[in-house]
Structure formats: C-alpha cells, structure tokens
C-alpha cells in the first residue's frame, strides 16, 4: 500500500472562453497519502474549485492523469465516475447540500442506496453514522428543522456513511459562524486522528492552518506545498 491515495500528474483543465483559453489548472502535480489532512487554499478564481472537482471525480482533466486509489479516472465514463465517487469519496459541501424533502436518516442513507446496500444494513450504517455526529435522536427530522451547524454535521454523517477512503470538504465552514466553524473543524480533526484522509478546500488561510499540510493554488498553479508551520512562516500568518 505504498501508492498514494491521490496521484495527480501533469493535470491541465482548460476552458475556452470566447477566443481565449483559460488555464484553470495549469500543470498540477499532487500526491496525497492515506491518513493525511490537507488544505487546498487559494483565492476565488485561483483554480482550487476546479482542482476540487478533479479530486472529487466530478470532472475529468483536459489532459494529464488522475489516479484515485490507483485507478485512472481521466478515461472513465459518467457512470464509472459516479461509482468511484460513491465508493471512495465522502463529500462535505459548503451549503451542506442535504435534500430538504428527505429525513436526516434518508439523507444519510443516500450514498448507501446508490451503492446498492440492502435496506436493513443501510439503516444500521446510517444510524451509526448519525450517532458519530451526535444527531442520532433526530434521525426522523427534516434538515430545515436543524441549525446550520447541525445540518453540516448531518452532511458529515452522510459523507462518513459509506466509509470512504477520502473525505473531501469544500469550504465546510463557509456558511457557519465562528463558534460552529470551530466545532466542525474540531470534528474534522477528530476524524483525521481516527485515521481518515481529509482534503479541505478553503479560501481562508486561518482555516487552512487547521490541517497538517497546506497546498496553495494561484492562477491554476501550485505555488506552495508543505507542512502547516512552514506555510505560516512563508506567508507570515499568525498561527
């Protein structure tokens, strides 16, 4: 198991805007091992969201390779990508992205449903997952009955339900106040300490520093990749 979990090689993502080619990702090379907690940080328009989409197998690179868990996603079909997302990645979105008409339990069950897991087992796993985020008793409630922080915890529960190799968090605290943000970040740290691999996308340096390793993107290129301490030093951010 010496393979990295994420192995991106010479990855380009190019959009055509009128007559112009826009290099959203410009020769990205990135390896992330199992058990890491990595922040990908950059300003808006830096290409970090594009990179997140590539890492999350939501999109394919224009050129270059992306090996996720040793499998090349750059040549996969739409359905194959859906399968690999389902089995390997747990998404945590900024807007939580819970389905408002489903109960919390049903929301958490969704990835298990698409994995083809039987009803009973689905229920057990989803409840287990909900209890990890401390919302087991509320399983029959609907997302709009919860606070933002609680909803984000449900979305974390949903991400955990299928025991994915990678937790991919896109601005997980973007919609939360600072206290709840702190709770969510602490929870992510706890998950990391339990052995989960976490990649967190953010525009906020202070939040990026909560990870163990920081990757900074600027104009589609990686301009920094190192541990948190050297990032703080180099960019003169108070830790």
């Amino acid at each position, binding site marked *: 198991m010496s393979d990295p979990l994420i192995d991106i090689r010479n990855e380009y993502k190019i959009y055509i805007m009128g007559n112009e080619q826009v290099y959203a990702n410009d020769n990205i090379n990135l390896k992330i091992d199992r058990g890491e907690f990595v922040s990908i940080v950059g300003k808006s328009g830096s290409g970090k969201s594009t990179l997140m989409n590539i890492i999350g197998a*939501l999109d394919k690179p224009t050129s270059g390779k992306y090996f996720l868990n040793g499998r090349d996603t750059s040549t996969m079909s*739409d359905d194959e990508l859906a*399968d690999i997302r389902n089995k390997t990645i747990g*998404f945590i979105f900024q807007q939580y992205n819970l*389905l408002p008409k489903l109960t919390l339990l049903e929301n958490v069950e969704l990835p298990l449903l*698409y994995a083809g897991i039987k009803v009973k087992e689905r229920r057990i796993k989803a409840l287990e997952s909900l209890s990890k985020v401390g919302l087991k008793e509320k399983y029959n409630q609907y997302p709009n009955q919860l606070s933002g922080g609680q909803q984000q915890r449900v979305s974390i529960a949903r991400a955990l339900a299928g025991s994915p190799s990678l937790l991919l968090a896109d601005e997980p605290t973007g919609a939360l106040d600072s206290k709840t943000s702190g709770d969510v970040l602490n929870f992510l740290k706890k998950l990391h300490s339990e052995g989960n691999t976490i990649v967190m996308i953010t525009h906020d340096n202070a939040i990026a520093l909560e990870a163990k390793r920081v990757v900074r993107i600027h104009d589609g290129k990686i301009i920094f990749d190192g541990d948190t301490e050297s990032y703080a030093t180099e960019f003169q951010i108070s830790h």
Partner: protein
Amino acid sequence: MLQSFKLAIKAILSNKIRSALTMLGIIIGVAAVIILVSIVSGYMGQMVEQFEEMGVNKITIFCRNMNTRHIDDDDMYKFWDEHPTWIDSLSPTVTLSSAIAKSGSDNLDSTTITGVSEDYLDIMKYKVEEGRNLVYADVAGRSSVCVIGSYVANTFYGSAEKAYEDTIKINGKPFTIVGVIETQDEDNFEEGGTDDFIWIPYTVATKMNRNGFINNFVMNSTDTLYTEEITEALEEKLSNVFKNDRLYNVMANSSIIKQLNQSIGTLTAMLAGIAGISLLVAGIGVMNIMLVSVTERTREIGIRKALGARQGVIMQQFVIEAAVTSTIGGVFGIAIGAFATKSIGAVMDIKANPTVWAVLLSFGVSVAIGLIFGYLPAKNAARLNPIDALRVD
C-alpha cells in the same frame, strides 16, 4: 425501484396543484376515450339488436318483373324444394298499392294491405291474438279471408273479439276477418304504424293487382350459416332469369348486421383516435411539467449524482414520476369515464357500458404517455453535469 416509486409519490404530493392540473389533462383524455367509445358502441349495439329482433335468419328478395322475364311463386317454392335444408319458411309478399279498404263506411286510407302466405306470421315472428292465421287452404283456394293488425281491429271494430268474423271490403270485395294479430309496437300504435295492416292470401292479391306479378319474397333460413350460400344461389337463379342485376336484389339481415358491425368497428376506432388526440395533448402537458420539474430540481439531481447516482437511477426516478402521474390520472379518468358513460347512457336511454377494451386501452395509453413523454425530461436530468447542477441555487 420501490424507492423511486416512493420518491415519485412524494414529488407528486409536494406540488399538489401542479400535479392535479397535469393529471387533469390525462383524466379528460382517458374519460373522453371511454365515453365516446362506450356510447357509440352501446348505441350501435342497439341498432344491431333491432335488426336481430327483426330476425337474423330473414332474407328478402326484391325483383322487377316484366312480361318477358319474371319469376313467380312456383319458381321460389321450387328453389325451396331444391334446398330443403337451407330454408325454414317462405312467403311471397304482394303489396296492394291502389286498393281501397272499407270497414262499413270508414275508409282505411293508411292501412297496408299485403298478400302473403301462411308462413308469413312465423317469418315476422308475430302471434295471433284472436282467431287463426292464414292457412294453406286459404292460399290454394284463393279464399276471401284476411288477418288484420290490432290497430285496425281496435280502431274500426272496437276490439279483436268484435273484429273477428266481421268483414272488410277491399276494392268492393268483402273479406272475412279470420284472425287478429297481437299488438307489436305500443309506441307506434297509430295510423300507418306497425299494427295498421291487413294480410290476405297472396294468390288473391296477385289477382287483384293488374299485372299479377309477385315482386317480393321473404324467407327464413334454418341457420345464419347458410346465409351466404342461399344468397349466392338466389342471385344465380335470379341472374339467369333477369340477365340484369339491377332488376333484382337479395338482402340478408345477417349480412346487414355483419356490415353494421364492421361500421361500428371503424367508427369506434375513429372516435377513439379523435379522443386519443386529447391524450396526446395531455402527454405533452406531462412532458412540460416534467421539464419544469427537472429544472427546479437541478440542484437535487446534482447532489444525487455527486453522491454516486448513476444516470440510469436518475432517469428511472423521473420516468417513474411521470408514469405515476399519468397512471393516477388514468385511473381517475377511467372512473370518471365509466361513471359519465353510465349517466349519459341513462339520459340517452342507451345501454352504454364502458367496454373492457376501451378501459384497458386508455389505461395502457396513459401509462405509455408517462413513459414516453417522461423519457426526454428524464434523459435531460440524467445527463446533467453534477458540477453545473451543484452550482445552481
């Protein structure tokens, strides 16, 4: 699959007014098919029944006799002798056109006077109320006797009993009333109606008509199976005599019923087609709503896809939603259609029952509409790019 049905019902319930309006299109379409088809086939079925009451075995022969080419009663009775198994009964019918009938001093202007044989009563499926029917001896002996309809008896004599053995003068010649026929049609009991008739032996009638020809015959086959053979044989015989097919005509009730049934089929299919157009319009309505539904739920689709839903799963969800919508509409349409058919049938006095095939067809069509018109929107949904879909607010 079960999950998809649950989701479909949830989606339909979450937008009740919109779903109801979409279903309304289907309901109207399905109900229209059932009502039109059932009413028409009920109405036409009654026409067939009426013909059947007149006798499915009945075959009528019309000819235009001339001095050089003609047929007479002997020819027809000979035909019967040649085909004894085909024919059950036979009667010439000779209409006395310019005869004047008088009961005492009353003129019977509207009364139909027909010369017939003793078989005529059976062929017409009439029954004697008073006295007796004409017998062979009357025909052979050219007796001046007659059998009258109950309208004649009641109007001019007061009752059947009073008319019995009284006399009627036809062209000045007295005829003894030997029998009165039961009332055939209460609704048509009037001058010139079904029961306003006099029967006399055809042998007497031909003598009273100036040219002495028998232009019409009516017969009953033993079984409708023989209809075609009898018709063909008669046409051959008549063709040999007349050499011109405009001078004769053979009409079998069973063939008419057969033709009528064919017309019913065509008409019903046509009406079902017209009503089907409203189903088509309803289908477009379903598609429209599904397209809106997909657009509204772009974000939901994005989330589902991000979480690993394959295209087929998304597609199934929307196709089932469309199919469930139109199926529910179809079921309501059937119920309303069946109820309306019964009510309209009762008002129009038609035995109209929702036909099984109309119900099955319209149900099938409404499910199919959901599947067909749900397909395109579902495909759009399935093909959504999860990134774009997630970006939508």
